[in-house]
């Protein structure tokens, strides 16, 4: 593993974890979720994290995104060490530099689709760049749904609104936690295809946790996790190869 010391590396590495260890509980009940993880997320790449239940994949995503803290080790987002930030600074990083797509409950029910999309910017009291806003909305096919409340949207539409929100502030990184987990295969496929386009067409970096091989197949690179450790990597995956690999992990 190379160490991030050069400016070159900073330019190509979007995020990294160094010797990340996470333990839940204490004493006899202690569960080690991450065992000295080292990982680098390359800029402009779509990375998928896979693994069986309890492998620590969600914990890895949450700690990389600054939503959860490590017991030891360091997390970097670009040149910022997240593990050195306090709560207020972390909130600002999440607001300004990171986009999120969760599996469910992505949207504030009292805000319209347009308001939900602009939420990270309006929280920061900034206005979205109108061209970018229109572009994202058009790409996701949400043009005629902007004035609707989340309750009036289908599951697929809701997740696309969430994706638009994740991209609206042109974040350095988008973290997605099972984004298609609650969608049917058609809606899920559309969402993942859009995420793929975001990476290809405007160089967005995305890290996604999933247990669905066909979802993971949209990624450039898959990192396999088992029992809190990185056990394998796969570049340019296909669904079949992923499925085969997963079988050996006993998922």
């Amino acid at each position, binding site marked *: 593993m190379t160490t991030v010391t050069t400016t070159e590396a900073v330019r190509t590495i979007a995020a990294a974890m160094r010797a990340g260890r996470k333990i839940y509980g204490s004493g006899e009940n202690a569960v080690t979720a991450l065992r000295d993880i080292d990982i680098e997320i390359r800029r402009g790449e779509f990375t998928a994290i896979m693994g069986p239940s309890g492998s620590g994949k969600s914990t890895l995503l949450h700690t990389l995104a600054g*939503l959860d803290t490590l017991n030891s080790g360091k997390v970097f987002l670009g040149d910022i060490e997240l593990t050195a930030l306090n709560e*207020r600074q972390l*909130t*600002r990083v999440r607001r300004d530099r990171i986009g*999120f797509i*969760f599996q469910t409950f992505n949207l504030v029910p009292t805000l319209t689709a347009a308001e939900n999309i602009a939420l*990270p910017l309006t929280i920061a009291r900034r206005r979205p760049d109108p061209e970018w806003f229109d572009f994202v909305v058009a790409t996701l096919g949400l043009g005629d749904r902007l004035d609707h409340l989340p*309750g009036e949207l289908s599951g697929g539409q809701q997740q696309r609104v969430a994706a638009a929100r994740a991209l609206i502030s042109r974040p350095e990184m988008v973290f997605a*936690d099972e984004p298609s987990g609650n969608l049917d295969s058609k809606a899920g496929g559309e969402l993942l295809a859009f995420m793929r386009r975001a990476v290809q067409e405007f160089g967005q970096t995305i890290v996604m946790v999933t247990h669905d091989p066909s979802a993971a197949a949209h990624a450039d690179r898959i990192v396999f996790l088992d029992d809190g450790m990185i056990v394998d990597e796969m570049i340019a995956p296909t669904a079949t190869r992923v499925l085969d690999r997963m079988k050996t992990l006993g998922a």
Partner: protein
Amino acid sequence: MLRVALKGIAHHKMRLVLTAMSIALGVSFVAGTFIFTDTIDNTFTTLFTDVYSGVDVSVRAAKPEMGAAAGTFDESVLAGVAKVPGVDRAVPSADGFAQLLTRDGKPIGGQGPPTIGTSWSDEPAMSAARIEPGNGRGARAPGEVVIDAGTAKAQKFAVGDPIDIAFQSGKETFTIVGIVSFGSADNLAGATLAIFDLKEAQRLFGMPGKLSGISIAAAHGVDRTQLATAVSATLPAGLEAVTGNQQTKETLDQITTAMGFISTALLAFAAVAVLVGAFIIQNTFRITVAQRTREIALLRAIGASDRQVTAMVVIEAAVVGLIASVAGVGLGVLIALGIRGGMDAVGVGLPGGSLVFEPRTVLVALAVGLVVTLLSVVLPARRAAGVAPMAALRDAETTQRRSLRGRAIVGSVLTGLGAGVLALALSGHVTNQTLGVVAAGALSVFLGVSVLAAIAARPAARFLGWPLPKMFGVPGALAQSNTARTPRRTASTASALMIGLALVTFVAMFAQSMKTSVDDRLAASFPADFSIQSSNQQVGVSQEYLAKVTALPQLGIVVPVGMTTLSINGHDSLVSIIDPATIEQVYDMKADRRVSELGSGIFVNEGAIKGGMRVGDSVTVKGDLGETTLKVTGAFKDETVGSYFISEQTATGLVRPAEPRVALVKVAKGAAPADARTAMNAIGASFPTIKVQDASEVAAEVGTQVDQMLALFQGLLLLAIIIAILGVANTLALSVAERTRELGLLRAVGMSRIQVRRMVRWEAVLIAAFGALLGIALGISLAWAVLKAMADQGITTIGIPYASIALYLVLAGLAGVVAAIGPARRASRIDILTAIATE
């Protein structure tokens, strides 16, 4: 189901604690009122049973009145009474008015309990008054006085000290020779005592050679009742002999009547607090039922009947209600102590003594708490029963928007009904009996408006919250939309606050209008320059003083006005006794004819005319001395000086002559009012109880009294408002719990803790402001309606206390901020991970 219900309670302790508190506070007020009145009752019973225990029979003028006006009789009666067989000892007494003065000449007491003057007897067995060793001796010579230990302690008087005492005849200086106490009590229910030698007392009270009463100790083995009959037989007409038991009973009856009024008033405030608490309970259970829709649906799906689900909610409510009521009874002790402390603070000294806990107190308080809680959950329980098993399978997050049309109908009907009742009750003459009907009408309006408030909640949130998005961005906008998204919840929470604020506004407006009306009336109806009154309400204006000031060259005319209670057509009414020849020079009663036409008839107020009396009618008037029929010879509008007027001649046959209550003064032509006042004050130096005031001072004094009442009422209403604030906190806490995931999401996408707190805080402020505005609007409308109806009772000008109302709004907003402290903190500390974690 019992087990499911109990587990549910154990699982949501905090929310139930807040709910329980809202009912416990109301119950505590009920229990506190009972404990307080029982305690006072008990103390007085013990005290007066003790006071009269040594007296077997007493002789007195028939139909005694309180205070100095009590009838007297010649002291020759004593010798006859002493000779009646069975009389062991007969002790004469002379009672009257004696106002103790502080060292710098100020009256001691006199605002609440009486200031008693009486004569000393050296018969310890016949009196509860004791001079403990070291506290001197009885009064046996002119210039000597014995005072009560309460006054001695409070004013640091000791045996041997000089003390000034004011009588209706003027002020004199005495030497304290003894200090009395009553067992463990320092005084008689807060009264001040001045005890003189009999001859001295007779002189001081202006009754030389006369007595107020004779206390008789029966010889051994003689029956009290028989002795009383025997003594009565020897008494001249106008006198009677009653047993000690009879006297104790009469005194206690008087006290019970007075306390009954206080207790009724306190219970009315308790009812308000309980009503507000009911709103909170109903709201809490509605929210929790909604939040548990899935859980309830699951129970239904696995076979629980709708009745079992209802039972679960009802059992949960019953347990909460019971715990809250028990806590309320405990808190009631504190409330009772608080009421006693409060009364002490405003100068109504009440005897101490340990608190009395009647079983009735506990029963009533528990019943009130339980019944109110159970009634409050009727609707939520029905809602729970209506949950379909299918709801378990649906997404819990989708809140179905039910139509508010049912609300519109029910709310309009209740409001209309209440308004109708109010209109009907207020169309006639307003009496005390009207009050109950007005209260019922107001209650119906309150309920109706609280039902309708759900419809107004959404627009109100938009309107009241319009600056928030501009000022605070997303937190402001979300505060606004959160307030609007659950209109029923917002409306119930706001309604609880509405009730308290409506009543506070009502009393404030009432007070304001009373003050303004008095100002206006004094300006319009009083050509008089000064009014003379006694600062001690037991007595009227000293005749000696009046005689002296009438002689002053600076004064043009001094017009005394007497006041008495007469029964007019069977109703006790306050009647003023005037001199028709002079009254018009100092007072314009706005009569429909000259007052000189009063003659031997009676002038009645406009309200009585409205009530059906006509000029020319005959009315039956009954006083202590007799009964007669008077012709209504005129009607008048201004009731500042009285509601009925009769002449001094007419009064002679009805009541004993008494001192005037007030004397109105007009200065002589060319004399400066300031000079006249200086001259009156010079004479007044010997009459410390005399109060000379010009119109603005009278108005200011009335203003102060009105303000004191206002402060008292608002203090009592504060409890209802505190309960409402608890309700806001409770609703917010439940909403925050309900929105955990939403809050987590907001935090994840970059909302700071400060912004989250701000969001919850402004939601609270919006709810509070909504409730406050509804309350203020209702309070003003209600006050306006009642005041309009009372125009014939002297409230001629309706004033709106703008400054106070603005203050209430600000305070309500601040209360919202306070209510939001806990929920906002909890919201800001929500762990993002658990909030967004997938199930």
